[in-house]
Every structure is written in C-alpha cells, then in structure tokens.
C-alpha cells in the first residue's frame, strides 16, 4: 500500500470505530438529539473531509456534476433530515470503495509496469581493462558491450565472444532458457543466466526490442474498445440525468403537488427529499467507467505475461469476434525447413539413391538441395563428380562415375525422355535417373510444428470459426498439410501479393472479424489488412511489430488460442459488469423513486457495485 492509501485506511478505521461507538452509545444511553448529531459529525468529518473540500473546490470551478459535490449534497441533506448514521455510513463506505479501487487499479497497473522492468538501466563496456557502466541510450551501434551472468541484456546485439544461456521468459513467456553462441543474435530484455559474453550492439536504444515493446504497451491504452466508448458516452448523460431526476423528485414534484393540492405537509417534503438524496448517492457512474477499461487492461496484462502482446482493448474485442482464422503456412504452421520424408527406389537401395542425389546437388544452394545433402549425412566423394549443369526450375544433370545422372522434378525427367510414376502425396518429389534408367524418387516436405495441430483444433473447438491456410507451395503439399492439421480450406500457389487479395476475399465472405496469422517477415501487407493481424515470433522484425495488432513473442502458434481465450473471457467480464452495474443502479433508482430504498441500499448500489465490478474485472480468469 502506498502512503496515501495507508492514510486513507487509518481514516476509515478511525472513522468506522467512532461510528460504531456512537451508534452503540446511542442505543444504550438516551442522548439529546443535538448531542447525537455532534457525536456523529466527528466520524463524518474524519471520513469525509477531503470529499467536502473537493466538493467546495468543484463548486468554485463550476463542476457541479462532480461526484464529490453530489456525495456531499447527499450526505449533508441526510444530516438535515436527521439520518445521521446514514450520512456517516455513506461517507465511510465511499472511502472504503475508493481505497479498494485505488489498490486494485494500482495492482493491475503494476502488472503492466512489470513489463517495463525488462528495460535494463545500464550497459557495461570494457575500457582500459575495466568494466564501465553507461546508460544504454548512450551506447552507439557497433559498440561491444559486456553482459555478465545475472545482467539483463540492455540492447539488441550479436554475440562476439563467449557462450551462455538466456532467460527469455519476460519477453516470450517461455520458461526454457535459450542457449546462445558466438554469432547468435541476442535481444534486449532477456536475462543472462550462465556465462559472461561480449556482444556487438546492432540497434540504437530507441529501436531495441525492449523500447519497441514498451512503446507498444504504452500506446495500448489509446486503442479503445467499442465498449469503452459506449460506457463513457453513457456516463456523460447518466449523471446529469440522474441529478435532474433527483431535482424533480426532491423539489419540483413536491412543490407542484403541494401547490395543486394546497396542502403543505412537511413530512411529505422530507420523504420526497430523502428519495432525491438516494438518487444523488447512485449518480456516479464510476463503477462502470472504471471496470470496463480495467477489464481490458487486466486482459492485456494477463496476455503479456504469456508472451502475447495485444496492442489495445480494441483488438481484444475484435479477437473475440473472429469468425475466420487465416494462417500463412511456411514458418507459421510449419517450421519452414525442408526435410526428406520418403524415398522410393527402383533397383537400387535407398542409401545409394540418397547418395546420388546428394552428390548431384553438391554445389546447389537451393533449400531442397540442402535438405538432400543433410539427409545423406555422410560427405559424398566429390572426386566421382564430373560436370554439373543446373537447369533452373527443373533440377540438375550431373556426371557421376562417367554416367549422366538427372536429379529434379517431373519436367526434367520428361525432357530426358524418362517416364515417371504418378505420385499422390504431399511434398515435393525429386526424381533420380541414371542415363535413361529411372531409379526412384525422394519426397521432400516442410515439417509441421509440433503444436500446430492442437492449436488449430483448439481454435476450431473454442470459436467454431473457419480456418484457412495460404501458401505459395504447390497444391499437393498444401493439401497434405491442411489435412494433417484439420484446416478447413487451403489456397495454394499464391504469390505474396495474392495473399492480400485472397484475404480480402475471405473478409468479404466472412460474417464477423477475420484474423490473419503470419510469421511477420513477408506477410506484413496481409497482417495490416486483416481485422486482427497477428505476427508470430516477431521479436526481430520491426515491420511486423508495427503492422500487427497482436504479437506472439514466442514462435509457436499455440499462443493464439490462448489469446483468443483471454479475449473472450475479457469481453464476457465487460458485458457482465455493464449489465450488473446498470441493472443494480436502475433497480435502486426505481425502488428509490417509489420510496422502497434507503440510503444504505443506495450506498451499496454505488460502492458495492463498484467493488464487485472491479473484483470481477481483475480476477484471474480460468
């Protein structure tokens, strides 16, 4: 608790005990009415002095609809009507509510601020054999910094010396430490766990990962959700309206009534006035105004702890409304690394075929060639290799042991007059032939990330939304992966610019919001175009962080269902709070107008609802 909060707590305890003491005393000993008033005034002023003072200043500034002013009028009115305990209680309870609100808002503010702690205050450089601490802002790009175990990485850099493991949990929510070696990139905000490393700074402080993330969270409050604006608009009319009603019930109506009936009954006046005061007590829309942004804030806090950055309440709201999830394939659902999956041979062994393929592709830089060489593992004997001719878009022909070996796709085989079997399986087929004898084929495909399938299933189960996969790959491999993952639709053989067009098509056909998930490297246009653009594992990519609405810090798509779940829970809480707060207030207003409510109930409707709404907003949702 802060000093201010402690002070308030002391006042509440002191005021509360005096209030009880006076009430008890009055019940035991008959006291003259004036003395009772004086005794009650002590806790009244202890609890309400600041409210009264603020009310006074509010009047001076012509802020008549200020909650302090209305609260003061209500309690002073109650004192006039002889409702002493009520007046004290309203103040006491109001203060309790304020304290509670202060503490819980402070708490969730801290949970976001915890993220701000990922900023390191100092960087170390070596100067004349000694470590010197300087502010990260003063470090220029290219400077070599020293990061000791226990230090936070102050700036984005590349390791030049040493190895270590990094705790990336503050950024990614991933508990597993990451090992880094010379030449590896390290990002600011991670904690160095084991060894001292030297690293060369690659970006100035203002563009480091940490700075970008912090800017993002700071700006998140400006992207307001629809609910927030509805609530603030409601609040703008609610207070004046309730106060007008209060004036009508407390003053205008009784006056008119008396003038018409010509019957001046002071008890009637008092009763109507008392009803008006109840209106004033519930006239503050604070429960609503605070609980809605607080719910979103808590949602953003919850997700940031899991390595999901959401750029504002608006996107929590939209994420909860998504009816279609569109994924980029390579790098998002799959690892983006090609691997040999199957080998089919005719007349030779799989190992021999693999050797021939690896040998032929010895000089190629194509990812498929790389995967063939990796699969063979052994170092092929290059002395056997003669002339190699690369045929773009087809493959290679290489002379091995004096024979021409063709390695490539069906087009290459056709060109060489070799017939190939019909292949119906996902992936890319690499055929191998020696002179004019067909030897077999190797199926190469991109590997699916281990958590992709579960992520897709969970999303479908949770939202009932459609899932679509976009890829530049051929139809066969797209189909295989879509089937394997249970994705509803796929669009293959797309160029990067086609993706936006296809996405727009999906947006047009979907009755609801559309979310696009990409790895952020070449998907920025689609990420920008989607209602909710999600960039994955985008810590290194500036463009993606700028373009996206949600950033999954860790390179796994399984964070997406978590984000959707948080968004759904948050929106549900917001709805609950709106219905609850407006419902209770409306009920008390109706009861109050009819004379069935009293100050105690009104006080509950004001403060109690606030407290319950706040608890609902900040509680951890399962």
């Amino acid at each position, binding site marked *: 608790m802060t000093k201010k909060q402690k002070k308030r707590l002391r006042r509440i305890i002191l005021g509360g005990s005096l209030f009880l003491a006076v009430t008890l005393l009055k019940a035991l000993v008959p006291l003259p009415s004036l003395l009772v008033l004086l005794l009650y005034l002590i806790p009244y002023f202890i609890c309400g002095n600041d409210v009264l003072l*603020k009310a006074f*200043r*509010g009047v001076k*500034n012509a*802020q008549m609809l*200020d*909650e302090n002013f209305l609260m003061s009028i209500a309690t002073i009115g109650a004192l006039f009507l002889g409702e002493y305990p009520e007046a004290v209680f309203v103040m006491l309870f109001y203060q309790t509510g*304020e304290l509670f609100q*202060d503490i819980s*808002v402070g708490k*969730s*503010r801290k949970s*976001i601020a915890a993220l701000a702690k990922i900023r390191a205050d100092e960087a170390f450089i070596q100067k004349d054999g000694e470590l010197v601490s300087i502010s990260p802002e003063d470090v220029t790009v290219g400077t070599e910094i020293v990061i000791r175990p226990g230090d936070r990485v102050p700036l984005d850099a590349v390791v030049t010396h040493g190895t270590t493991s990094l705790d990336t949990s503050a950024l990614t929510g991933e508990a597993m430490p990451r090992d880094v070696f010379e030449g590896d990139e390290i990002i600011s905000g991670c904690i160095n766990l084991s060894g001292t490393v030297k690293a060369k700074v690659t970006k100035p402080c203002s563009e480091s990962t940490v700075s970008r993330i912090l800017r993002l969270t*700071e*700006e998140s*409050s*400006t992207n*307001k959700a629809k609910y927030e604006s509805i609530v*603030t608009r409601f*609040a*703008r009319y609610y*207070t004046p309206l309730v106060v007008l009603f209060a004036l009508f019930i407390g003053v205008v109506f009784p006056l008119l009534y008396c003038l018409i009936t010509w019957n001046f009954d002071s008890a009637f006046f008092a009763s109507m006035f008392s009803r008006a005061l109840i209106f004033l007590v519930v006239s*503050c*829309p*604070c429960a609503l*105004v*605070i609980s809605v*942004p*607080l719910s979103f*804030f808590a949602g953003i806090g919850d997700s940031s702890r899991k390595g999901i950055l959401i750029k504002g309440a608006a996107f929590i709201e939209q994420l909860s409304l998504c009816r279609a999830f569109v994924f980029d394939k390579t790098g998002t659902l799959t690892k983006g690394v090609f691997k040999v999956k199957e080998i089919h041979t005719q007349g030779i062994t799989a190992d021999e075929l693999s050797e021939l393929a690896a040998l032929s592709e010895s000089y190629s830089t194509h990812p498929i060639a790389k995967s063939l060489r990796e699969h063979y593992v052994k170092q092929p004997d290059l002395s056997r290799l003669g002339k190699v001719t690369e045929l773009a878009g087809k493959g290679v022909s290489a002379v091995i042991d004096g024979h021409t070996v063709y390695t490539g796709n069906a087009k290459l085989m056709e060109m060489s007059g070799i017939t190939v079997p019909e292949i119906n399986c996902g992936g890319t087929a690499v055929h191998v032939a020696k002179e004019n004898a067909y030897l077999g084929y190797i199926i190469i495909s991109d590997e699916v990330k281990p958590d992709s399938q579960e992520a897709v299933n969970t999303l479908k189960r949770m939202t009932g939304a459609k899932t679509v996969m976009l890829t530049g790959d051929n139809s066969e491999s797209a189909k295989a992966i879509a089937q394997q993952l249970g994705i509803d639709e796929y669009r293959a053989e797309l160029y990067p610019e086609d993706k936006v067009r296809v996405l727009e098509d999906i947006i047009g056909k979907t009755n609801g919001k559309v979310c696009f998930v990409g790895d952020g490297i070449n998907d920025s246009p689609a990420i920008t175009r989607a209602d909710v653009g999600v960039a994955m594992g985008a810590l290194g990519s500036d463009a993606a962080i700028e373009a996206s609405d949600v950033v999954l810090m860790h390179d796994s798509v399984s964070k997406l269902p978590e984000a959707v779940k948080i968004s759904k829970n948050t929106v549900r809480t917001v709805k609950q709070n709106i219905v609850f707060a407006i419902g209770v207030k409306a009920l008390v207003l109706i009861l109050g107008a009819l004379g069935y409510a009293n100050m105690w109930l009104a006080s509950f409707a004001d403060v109690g609802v606030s407290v319950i709404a706040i608890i609902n907003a900040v509680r951890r949702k399962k």
Partner: protein
Amino acid sequence: MKKTFEIEDLCCANCAAKMENEIAKLEGVKSVNVAFLTQKLVLEADDDKFDEILAQAAKICKKIEPDCEVIIK
C-alpha cells in the same frame, strides 16, 4: 505532433473521461486520450500551437480534478 504526458494523482475514472471530452473540444486538437489506468495524457495537436494547447489542456484537467497535475517536461 503527438506527445505523451504523465498525469499525477488522477484518481477518478469519470473525471478522466470528462477531461478527454473537454480537451477534444479545444481548437487545434487532432486527437486526445486521457487514460485513467496508465495515468497518461496523449495529445495530438497542431505543431505551431502545441504548447499553447497543452497549457489549456493542463488547465482543463486541473479544473475538473483540482488535485491532479499534468507533468510537462
């Protein structure tokens, strides 16, 4: 120009909404956001009159909630 300022002791959510509403009415203000939760004022206004507008905005905040203070660095 768009700048962010801290607001100290902003302690009423409804007041923040009121401030935002009032500041938005100032001439030359392009966008404004008073965030109760982060205690921040994000003001976007014409460059040449920015300081003047900011001073007016701070005055509005003060009027609505006398205890709060916009930190102008």
